[in-house]
């Protein structure tokens, strides 16, 4: 929101104001679009957490599928419409926070208002042009994209709860993109988000919505990677789970994935456990995601090659290096990229189990070469292995 825009004022609607903040507005930022590969740290407040993490992965030269963020500057433009502001405020005022069923209806009404309101022409043109540019970049007429909400709420501890995180997969064509962008914008007013902000005493206008548009990956196989050995915390190894098709099967636990341990320094596969994989999620001809039964040899064949594993390990290590702590990474092997260069990263977030254990030093105290050799000789390593 810039100063020239009318502030949407829902303040009086709250019983008591337990928390107040006005969103910081940078008058210098006017862009409606930020490409992930041009992302800079300064963009963060305008593109939200999810988009900025994709941008940051690009900055770290991680192979994130290409795409762009529609900034909160674009989102703010829809509130130039004073009529829309008035109607939304009326509906919000009418809310009885104890009547959940009525709230759901009110929420739907607000969302419909936002989704039907005309988008300022300059904003819509920018979105359509950016999508066209993405299509050109990928060499596909109407590239399938994921449309993801990426809420931002500066100074709020948890933007992801304060704003709903809707994601729309396999969106094809500029019209569908625009339509789903509006759905993401309106998802700020899901009943759950309204109730949550109310309960926390957050202002509705403390939240703004950026939207990410990213090329969909049609994967041969996909999975997750931990940049350490989960059994002993050894940071020189990467644990990789993999299965056929989209990552849903692995993330949801519907299949027992193939499990690998890769040495990230020597770039060697140290351990492999190939399991029988029963189902996979795939994109059908009609562009719908379907759950399919895996038949034939693919059930028991490894879903990744050693070369894939090495590439995944190298990328996971790069993410870990960039973020400075062990990572939990989602990856996929893109069908439409050449083998050997087809690993893409969908997400990278800090690993939580081993990273929260207190660090123990291996060197006990300051290093004394002779003392150290003596203790090695007196209590040799292989004692432990008997």
């Amino acid at each position, binding site marked *: 929101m810039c100063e020239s825009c009318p502030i949407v004022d829902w303040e009086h609607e709250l019983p008591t104001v337990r928390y107040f903040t006005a969103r910081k507005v940078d008058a210098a930022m006017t862009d409606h679009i930020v490409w992930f590969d041009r992302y800079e740290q300064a963009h963060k407040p305008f593109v939200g957490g999810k988009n900025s993490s994709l941008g940051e992965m690009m900055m770290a030269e991680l192979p994130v599928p290409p795409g762009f963020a529609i900034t909160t500057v674009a989102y703010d433009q829809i509130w130039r419409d004073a009529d829309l502001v008035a109607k939304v405020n009326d509906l919000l005022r009418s809310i009885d926070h104890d009547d959940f069923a009525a709230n759901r209806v009110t929420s739907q009404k607000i969302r419909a208002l936002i989704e039907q309101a005309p988008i300022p022409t300059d904003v819509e043109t920018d979105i359509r042009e950016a999508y066209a540019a993405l299509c050109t970049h990928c060499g596909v007429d109407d590239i399938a994209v994921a449309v993801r909400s990426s809420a931002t709420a500066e100074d709020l501890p948890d933007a992801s709860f304060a704003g709903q995180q809707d994601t729309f997969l396999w969106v094809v064509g500029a019209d569908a993109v625009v339509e789903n962008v509006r759905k993401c914008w309106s998802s700020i007013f899901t009943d759950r988000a309204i109730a949550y902000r109310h309960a926390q005493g957050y202002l509705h206008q403390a939240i703004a919505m950026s939207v990410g548009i990213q090329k969909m990956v049609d994967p041969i196989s996909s999975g997750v990677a931990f940049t350490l*050995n989960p059994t*002993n*915390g*050894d*940071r*020189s*190894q990467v644990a990789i789970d993999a299965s056929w098709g989209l990552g849903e099967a692995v993330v949801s636990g519907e299949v027992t994935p193939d499990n690998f*341990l890769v*040495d*990230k*320094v*020597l770039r*060697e*596969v*140290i*351990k492999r456990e190939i399991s029988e994989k029963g189902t996979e999620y795939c994109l059908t001809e009609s562009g719908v995601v379907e759950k399919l039964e895996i038949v034939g040899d693919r059930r028991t064949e490894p879903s990744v090659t050693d070369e894939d594993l090495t590439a995944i390990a190298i990328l996971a*290590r790069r993410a870990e*290096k960039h973020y400075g702590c062990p990572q939990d990474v989602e990856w996929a092997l893109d069908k439409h990229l050449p083998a050997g260069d087809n690993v893409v990263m969908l997400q990278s977030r800090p690993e939580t189990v081993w990273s929260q254990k207190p*660090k*123990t*030093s*291996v*060197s006990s105290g*300051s*290093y004394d*070469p*002779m*003392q*150290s*050799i*003596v203790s*090695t*000789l*007196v209590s*040799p*390593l*292989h*004692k432990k*292995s*008997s």
Partner: protein
Amino acid sequence: MSNSFPSPFEIEGPEGAEGWEELYPYSSSFSNYRKDYEDNRFWFWDSMHWGKALTPWDATFMEAALAALSQMNSRHYRIPPADGVDFRILYGYAFLSPVGVDPSQIEARVPQFMERAGHYFGNWDSLYDSWLDKVKTTIAEIESIDFNPLPEMEELEVITSGSAIGSGGKLMSEYNRFRDLIMHAWQYHFEFLNLGYAAYLDFFGFCKEAFPSIPDLGIAKMVAGVEVDLFRPNEELKVLAQKAIDLGIARSFDDPNNVSLDGDAGAQWQAAWDEAKDPWFNFTSGNGFYHFDKIWVENPDIPYTFIKDYIERIEAGEDISRPIEAIREERDRVVGEYRDLLGSDEDREAFDGKLGLARVVFPYVENHNFYIEHWTMSVVWRKLKELGATLAKDGLLANADDLLFIRRDEVHEVLWDYYANWAVNAPTASAAHWAPIVERRRAIHAKLDAWKAPKALGAPPEVITEPFTIMLWGITSESVNNWLGSDEGSENELTGMAASPGSVEGIARIIYEPDEVNDLEQGEILVAPITAPSWAPVFPKIQACVTDIGGMMSHAAIVCREYGVPAVTGTGFGTDKIKTGDRIRVDGSTGKVTIL
């Protein structure tokens, strides 16, 4: 699964080898003199160094090596928990047994060790420089030993100088000098080695603690040198192959047994060969411990065959040069990655210190093998054969190589006979005396050689802690348990050390003798009791390597890592279970070998 190997006193040797003990010093045999001590120990057959039955002189160098190794641990540096490695010969085969220090004595040795070893670690580079000088001087001295036949008449100079000391006595002195110099060389061999391994183990232990699943070879890669003297002979062959092509005489090597170097080009190539051969082709096809090992300078057909191979590779457009820069970069990358992954700056400081020390000591660990086992031993065997030839020429022995079956202490008697009767100018007794003895010993030795020694004897200790046993022989508590359980183990699976990474499938070829190395065909998997550094030229040909014995730092492991060939070492039974022509899978990342 039994938890003990047979007692040395229960082993039945081959028929027809009765009286075999006379080939060796009585102190090297199992006997009733110390039965209690011997029966309560664990002994393993060191087939890595002594895979064949020993002749008396092969035994001499085994004994010299083990005594020198032991002396450095026990008497020089006072390694706190480890004394020597005891050695016995049973039916011709060398059995070793690490001797630990009584736990109550360990503490008292710590300050002694710190002072003594500390001096070496603190002055390593200058001590290593003088080591190189010492060894080269020793080799030159051995070369200078005069084993020529005694003269008909002394030189006039002996008279005019008033020296009075004649050639007969001098020959006996030269023989004593020969023995002394051999003892010196073996002490030099172990002067730094035990300490080098100690520093390496210290870094090794640190890495294992910081990265619980770090493969041993990850550690080896960080420490290994890039330019190592042990690789030089092979590098010189490549240069000579290129030179032959450049001079247009590549075809002269088509038949390595019949190479004629004609004309100006031939002379130029010969000059290049002469320059390289000293010292680099004092390189043995075996490990230097056996009289039958073939030395390149004396058997040029061996290096010529390798040169022929290299010529063919170059002509096929292959780049056979060693990618030194890439090897160095890879090493730096591995070090940088592990260092980055450490949890604290304190750990990084210790890592730097320990890696630094390991790298200071390692050139010695890698290079001593060329200087002693190859260069020195090449000269030693040459000299010994020279002495045999002299004794045969003057009728003391029926054949020059009879000398190999006469123990080192018995040689004094032969030389005395030679001297005395040369002095008197009368017939000698030696030929007649030794002929039947040597004949009997040759027959016994042949029986021993056809016999297969057991892997180990006696009860293994709960834990194996002696640094050499672990580092060099690759014998750990696991591998011993492996040997014990091998009868029940899967017929098709072998486990060893993951010595060089990668996984491949291919056809196995069993190589027992260095002579068979050239039988290896492109893409085969080499399976051998142990490999020698001089087999390096065949490593570009093979897909993988499996050995019966050897640790992370065994020659096979080092050479395989260098050539990027997967290797599993120390499988114990590779040459027993695998047959030439078997299709096998070698996984050098996990240490598993599967017969398919």
